[in-house]
């Protein structure tokens, strides 16, 4: 596992120009759109982390990688671990840039609201990671783009269907929102945390299964 993490770390460190570009963009966003920066940089970190899958599959790289001393499950789990580490680093850097920007503009270093908003970003982005990683592993870098587009389409359709269902059931938007607002915050957090954990377990096991079924 340590060897794989080192490999992926070295692979993305090879993209120095991309790093400099993203840091420059982040610095600009840190001043102009500080609320958006944590989402932006965390997403960039996830994209960079998952791009290592493209490096692995390039030039039949998988064939050799699968002969190294590890199980295929370890390979899949390492991708999650690496992406998680990258996401947290990206998220952390974004906060640092926002704080530096605030100090330079003589604003409060970090408001509770800004920290809360940034804290919400991380699990949302990780949820995105839980969806894209098995898709990347299953379909490869190229085909996964098409599959993800289809998944977004299905998600939009489900939202529209949910909205229609509420209308059919005679529940207005306001009623739904007020019902959601009536649920105690700790219960909401607990429920979302449970759903997140469930999604993580499903995603990791799906990825392990995908890798174990692959032939090279």
């Amino acid at each position: 596992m340590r060897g794989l993490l080192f490999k992926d770390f070295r692979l993305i460190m090879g993209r120095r120009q991309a790093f400099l570009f993203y840091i420059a963009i982040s610095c600009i966003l840190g001043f102009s759109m500080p609320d958006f920066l944590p989402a932006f940089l965390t997403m960039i970190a996830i994209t960079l982390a998952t791009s290592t899958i493209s490096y692995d599959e390039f030039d039949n790289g998988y064939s050799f990688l699968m002969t190294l001393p590890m199980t295929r499950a370890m390979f899949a789990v390492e991708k999650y671990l690496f992406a998680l580490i990258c996401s947290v680093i990206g998220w952390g850097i974004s906060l640092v840039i926002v704080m530096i920007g605030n100090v330079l503009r003589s604003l409060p270093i970090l408001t509770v609201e800004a920290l809360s908003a940034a804290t919400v970003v991380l699990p949302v982005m990780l949820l995105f990671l839980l969806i894209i990683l098995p898709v990347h592993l299953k379909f490869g870098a190229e085909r996964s783009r098409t599959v993800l587009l289809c998944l977004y389409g299905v998600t939009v359709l489900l939202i529209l269907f949910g909205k229609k269902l509420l209308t059919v059931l005679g529940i207005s938007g306001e009623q739904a929102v007020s019902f959601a607002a009536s649920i105690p915050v700790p219960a909401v957090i607990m429920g979302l945390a449970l759903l997140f954990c469930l999604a993580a377990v499903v995603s990791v096991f799906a990825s392990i299964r995908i890798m174990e079924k692959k032939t090279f």
Partner: protein
Amino acid sequence: MIQIENVEKRYGDFTLTVSLEVKEGQITGLIGKNGAGKSTTIKAILGLIQPDAGTVTVFGKKVSELQTADREAIGVTMADSGFSNYLTVSDVIGIQKRMYASFDETFFRSFCEKNKMPLNKPLKEFSTGMKVKIKVLSAISHQAKCLILDEPTTGLDVAARNEILDMLRNYMEQDPGRCILITSHISSDLENLCDDVYMIDGKVLLHEDMDVIISQYGILKMDERQYQQLDKAYILSTEKGRYGVRCLTNQRQFYVENYPGIVIENGNIDELILSIGK
């Protein structure tokens, strides 16, 4: 060390059926034409494909049951695969150091130094020969008990090939309990290296000790009249052409003694591929 028993793999019209064994202390060659199933056999041993039938065991265990420690004892080079070309030699050292408990970093670095290999240059900027050396070096630098090498000398000049073969000979000399399974298109490499050889073309056509091939196999060249009078008891294959008849035998001495009028050449792997692999 490696045992393949009645392994079958089907790809459309092509079916590979193979049984072979690589014994401790031996270098076994796997030869055959393009598409004969050499790489498929290697992939079956490494668990990269799932055979449709049969069993593959390495160190007495089924491939699917190999643990991480077992895999540490296997060194591999693949013909068309390896560490990412975007990594540097330093990165390869870093990866191996973290993956193999017995990785010999000093040996690896001193080899690179001796061969003037830049440590911080991406592999994509290396020559073919350098890349192959890194592949073989990676395979032999963690005290593997068994090497599985798919076409490790393809695309190299004679000097580079000899260096690779020397590396493999040294590897075997260090520990008699080791073994190598190697595929190659270059027959002279195998003739100078292997203890035994399997020839396949969808199935095993021949398994013979290299010494026997060199000392007992031969090519007989004669005209049609001589061929009619020939005792064909030890003829393995016959090819009739415009300029006469060519026969492969595994009893060259018999024909040397009894047929002084025909041309008899020593056997070699190229002739085996040409004669048996037809």
